[in-house]
């Protein structure tokens, strides 16, 4: 067992733990944060089914972004859905025997890799070229795009230019998830790819990438437009109410 295998294995256990615990903790915080005011962006749905439909539109079609800016929308959508398909394609490294539908979408994932990188490249150009956007961009905004771009490009290069031994790679990943470590092929592109993925996993719970769980907790999107039908009374306000009523009764 090489030092490289041991280091990368330990790194992935650590980054996996940080990702899972970190995101769970963030979701717990989002869940507990009170949102005492009814502030859905109107026109807003009146029913829970309507809210589900609205969130579906947000998550799957990026509805707000579509209404806001078509360029950002098309680039962002290309990137996100390219990445989704690429991630699903990667399930072949984590399932044995491979699920039938993962087998079925392999070819789609190959093209999706290009869509993902094209979208990311476009978003980076936007950040650099559009004056207004460059002005409000923090270093982390650029670095996040560069990191994802690096992951995508190193992956594409392994697929199309400098191949790695994917049977050994799968033995390595299966070894990781079954706690039976297997050697990792020492191909530079593969190591770079894995290091960047681990970095992404580690920074996920501390970065803007949290918009993934966050969108579901967005009050302007997940609330019903029912301020007249229902009184939305926060606990602390209810106490004030009681004292005032008792005061008026005297």
């Amino acid at each position, binding site marked *: 067992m090489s030092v490289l295998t041991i280091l990368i294995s330990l790194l992935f256990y650590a980054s996996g733990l940080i990702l899972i615990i970190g995101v769970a903790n963030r979701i717990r915080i989002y869940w507990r944060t009170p949102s005492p005011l009814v502030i859905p962006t109107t026109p807003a749905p009146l029913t829970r089914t309507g809210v589900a439909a609205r969130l579906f539109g947000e998550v799957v079609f990026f509805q707000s972004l579509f209404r806001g800016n078509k360029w950002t929308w098309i680039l962002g959508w290309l990137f996100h859905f390219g990445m989704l398909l690429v991630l699903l394609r990667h399930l072949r490294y984590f399932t044995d025997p491979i699920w039938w539908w993962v087998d079925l979408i392999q070819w789609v994932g190959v093209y999706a890799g290009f869509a993902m990188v094209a979208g990311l490249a476009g978003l980076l150009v936007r950040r650099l070229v559009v004056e207004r956007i460059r002005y409000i961009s923090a270093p982390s905004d650029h670095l996040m795009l560069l990191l994802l771009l690096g992951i995508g490009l190193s992956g594409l290069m392994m697929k199309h230019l400098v191949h790695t031994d994917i049977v050994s790679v*799968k033995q390595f990943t299966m070894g990781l998830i079954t706690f039976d470590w*297997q050697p990792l092929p020492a191909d530079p592109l593969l190591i770079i790819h894995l290091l960047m993925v681990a970095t992404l996993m580690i920074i996920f719970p501390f970065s803007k990438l949290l918009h993934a769980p966050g969108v579901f907790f967005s009050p302007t999107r997940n609330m019903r437009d029912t301020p007249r039908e229902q009184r939305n009374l926060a606990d602390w306000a209810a106490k004030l109410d009681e004292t005032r009523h008792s005061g008026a009764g005297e």
Partner: protein
Amino acid sequence: MTTHRTTAFLLSGSLFLGLALTANALSGPKIPQARGEKCVEPVEMMRRNHMEFLKHKRDATMRWGIRTEKHSLVGCIECHAAKGEDGKYIPVNDPDQACRSCHDYTAVTMDCFSCHATVPKEGAAPAGSKGDS
């Protein structure tokens, strides 16, 4: 108290690390032993690039009419096709055979055998044979 916890943490950690290091039963695809002395390229090279060799070979032969013996698919099959208990060759794209087992393991499709034969010609000698690609 804190020292105890640290010790326990380190102990369990090193135990876990030790377990992970000693376990080395290689899971994954198992393919039949090939015949012939050695492959046309080093094993490490073949694992990564056999598809490129075959595709290059296909283009060179089919489109440019260049026929050579190295990297010939016929050559692959002569060594890698296994014989069943009945003494007959098993197609290399059968489950758990040389080509299919790894391709199934990683969900990679092969389209070689919609045209090419999956068993050697009867009487073909494995090593150093004259494959007519």
